[in-house]
């Protein structure tokens, strides 16, 4: 168990290497997460990190973190970012530029769309295994609801509900631009 003691614990891991990306989209970009499952010392710190790259006009799907605050630092490019709090109140709608930092509180929903030169960021989470819950895509909450619930919740037809659930097919978190029916 020597390698399990804090003295010999691994203290670093590269998250900028594209081959280590957890989510990759050829036209959208990539996201690499680093949590305590990959780097056990983060369990002591109760923190984790994420590195993201969005290509031109690609979207980081609307999502929230259910167990952590998130602090975003822009490493390159720019994006339009919107953050929504409880009671549906928009608390931020603006451009994020290189060198800026933005706090996204726990449970607040956020969406980012990269500008023309793309967008790169690193974000720090206040939980060693931060959970992101997307609103769009394969693992989204809308995909997890029966079509009838969506139809009645949003007063839409069955076809519209199907489109809401399945239009993004296999995509998750990183969305390619210009896909609209």
């Amino acid at each position: 168990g020597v390698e399990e003691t804090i003295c010999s614990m691994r203290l670093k891991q590269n998250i900028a290497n594209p081959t280590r990306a957890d989510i990759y989209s050829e036209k959208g970009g990539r996201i690499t997460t680093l949590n305590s499952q990959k780097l056990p010392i983060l369990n002591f710190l109760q923190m984790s990190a994420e590195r993201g790259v969005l290509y031109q006009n690609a979207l980081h799907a609307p999502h929230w973190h259910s167990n952590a605050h998130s602090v975003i630092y822009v490493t390159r490019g720019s994006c339009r970012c919107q953050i929504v709090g409880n009671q549906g109140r928009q608390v931020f709608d603006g451009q994020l530029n290189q060198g800026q930092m933005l706090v996204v509180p726990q449970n607040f929903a956020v969406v980012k769309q990269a500008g023309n030169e793309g967008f790169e960021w690193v974000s720090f989470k206040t939980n060693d295994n931060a959970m992101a819950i997307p609103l769009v895509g394969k693992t989204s909450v809308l995909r997890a609801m029966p079509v009838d619930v969506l139809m009645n919740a949003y007063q839409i037809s069955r076809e519209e509900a199907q489109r809401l659930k399945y239009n993004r097919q296999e995509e998750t978190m990183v969305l390619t631009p210009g896909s609209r029916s």
Partner: protein
Amino acid sequence: SRHYQGQSQCRIENINAQEPNRRVESEAGVVEFWDQNNEQFECAGVAPTRYIIQPNGLLLPFFVNAPRLVYIVQGRGMSGALIPGCPETFHSIRQSAQLRAGRSQQQGARDQHQKIRSIRQGDILALPAGVTHWLYNEGETPLVAVSLHDTSSNANQLDRNLRRFQLAGSQQTQTTSYQQRQQQRQQVRGQQQDIPENNIFNGFNVETLAEAFGVSTETARKLQGQNDQRGNIVFVEGGLRAIRPQQGEDEEEREQRYRTAN
């Protein structure tokens, strides 16, 4: 586990039984809130809520910033807890069999979703913080559920205020008789009660939503529910249909029965 928010102030000299002090009415039910600023609830670090859902009423999906236990006081229905990271695994074997047989699907052949749980009087639902939840009353009597939110839990890294995040619907708070009595007191405390409660899509730009979901701007507007006057509990005409085990059949028995066909 309660050290995170700091020790609460518990200067209680008398303890009183508490009634809800705020009532929000919707098309198919009522949500009642106890005053979370009451010193007794503040001391315990909890916030209680009661839902009364009429037959065929659907409590629209929402999540809160704290873990909660929900007790079903009366009635029966179905409940969906959307757990992050879990794929939409719930598709019936019956559906697959029908597909193989080439029959038409009333449910829509493509629909899959996460597991739906039948609930009835006496059940406790345990819901982690940030997990989206909906509830539907499929009985003949009102479905009454009491929910206690542990706002002082470590899972809540915000302040101790209970915050609701609606995924659908919108709600203009309506004042009721006993609320009116409380309102003056709360206004003195500088609190604003009559804030419209919109869903989180309402805070996003329509164009961004349309692009993210890959739908028209018209559908994106419907997601925002701006002109939706039904509130957070809505009537489902003709009843809610969803893929789930047939009623009266124990889920474990059913799994056992179909195991060999897997």
